[in-house]
């Protein structure tokens, strides 16, 4: 059911446009601060940790582990598994676990990024690795 789900295209803005341009090429980008060295997600121009404006784009491996999840049993578009996953590079982010038996999702499970189309740039989701 969730496979057939239609997603709205991201609105995008000047600050995040490079993320969505990279997404069209299948690249999952995060931001890293060259002052404090910390990576963050979603991407900001100013580092949310040290407030430096020296942030640069970095391609993530797209490899992550499930931090937590919850299987929503009913919705207008069917059941879906919301989750936070922690990227190999450090930052955790909100997503859905897709393209699998949702009953088998587990904390600590290895997952990898997968893209779902919209009328604009594709959206990142995660699926068992």
């Amino acid at each position: 059911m969730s496979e057939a789900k239609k997603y709205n295209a991201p609105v995008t803005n000047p600050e995040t446009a490079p993320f969505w341009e990279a997404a069209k090429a299948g690249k999952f980008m995060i931001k890293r601060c060259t002052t404090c060295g910390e990576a963050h997600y979603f991407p900001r121009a100013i580092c949310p940790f040290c407030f430096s404006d020296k942030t640069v784009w970095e391609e993530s491996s797209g490899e992550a582990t499930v931090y937590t999840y919850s299987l929503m049993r009913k919705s207008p578009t069917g059941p879906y598994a919301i989750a936070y996953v922690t990227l190999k590079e450090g930052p955790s982010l909100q997503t859905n676990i897709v393209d699998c038996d949702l009953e088998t999702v587990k904390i600590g499970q290895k997952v990898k990024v997968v893209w779902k189309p919209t009328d604009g740039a594709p959206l990142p989701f995660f699926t068992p690795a």
Partner: protein
Amino acid sequence: MTIKGKAYIAGIYEHPTRHAPDKSTAQLHAEVAKGAIEDAGLTKDDIDGYFCAGDAPGGLWPMVDYLGLNTKKLRHVDSTETGGCSYLIHLGHAAEAIAAGKCSVALVTLAGKPRTGPMPPRASGAEADFELAYGATTHNAYGMCAMRHMHDYGTTSEQLAWIKVAASHHAQYNPHAMLKEVVTVEDVLNSPMISDPLHRMDCCVVTDGGGAMIVTTPEIAKSLKKPLVRLIGHGEAMKGPRGGKDLDLTYSAGVWSGPRAFEEAGVTPKDIKYASIYDSFTITVLMQLEDLGFCKKGEGGKFVADGNLISGVGKLPFNTDGGGLCSNHPVNRGGMTKILEAVRQLRGEAHPKVQVQNCDLAIAHGTGGLLGVRHAASTCILERA
């Protein structure tokens, strides 16, 4: 500078309705305002401060005009919007304004009709493109907290169920409660799974209705006829994923708002006789009890089990009106009703079956927003004067 003892809650009113197809949202605000003003023994013309949040149609300008507040007198307004805990923050801000001489009689209103009218969409910020598609709702955002809490600390569904069981024991004595039936742990576990690991009975009710309070100076409060209840400590805090670093969904902003309030009040969790704890879901209560220091982090499951939250049975009577889990959760915002039942307990006006004996110190605490995403927390320590 402290607000300790500088502001009193002189009037309270909880709308008896839980289903209001025949009323407007603005009308419900007016009805609860009228109720709180009359409970205090004041008049509308005495109001010189007004507080409302995102549930008030159009916000401050239309509400002040619709209610017909005396604009020659009205000299302090505040529309702080932090979801369900807005009204706990309003209480703290009202006390600050009163202590600073900016107003002397503040009205705070909450009302709405999630059962019988449209609800405004949740506003989103810079995260929208990176989160909206994933369908975070209250159920699954709190479900994610519960799932991780179980993983890290071994918390069980049975333990969470005890929170609902305790609320239902109290709700049976509240004639206005939406759900008056006493339930068992088994009932909760056998109710349908909504968003793992939360069952239907782990979730609060959805109700039309509202509530209001009057916050005033010590002098004015003492000139009125109601038992005296004053605010002696207040804390507020916010928490979010903040760039995704060190994500930990097993604690809330209550770990910061709680100590701020206790420190200002000069009391500790052990001193509290009655606790109003926001109960949007059972996990909300469990995490807040830990975060406020009623037990250690991770031991909330043991703390709430076996009726420890039932008035007259356990050590920490909570939500003796039946709370959001059974009685009322107007506009999907539980902060106001938390304050109202704490005031009833301190006045000695709770139902005799649930009234805590010698209740002279209470806490009202809540969160707003989504516990598993971005949220605020606010803690109020209230004392019978």
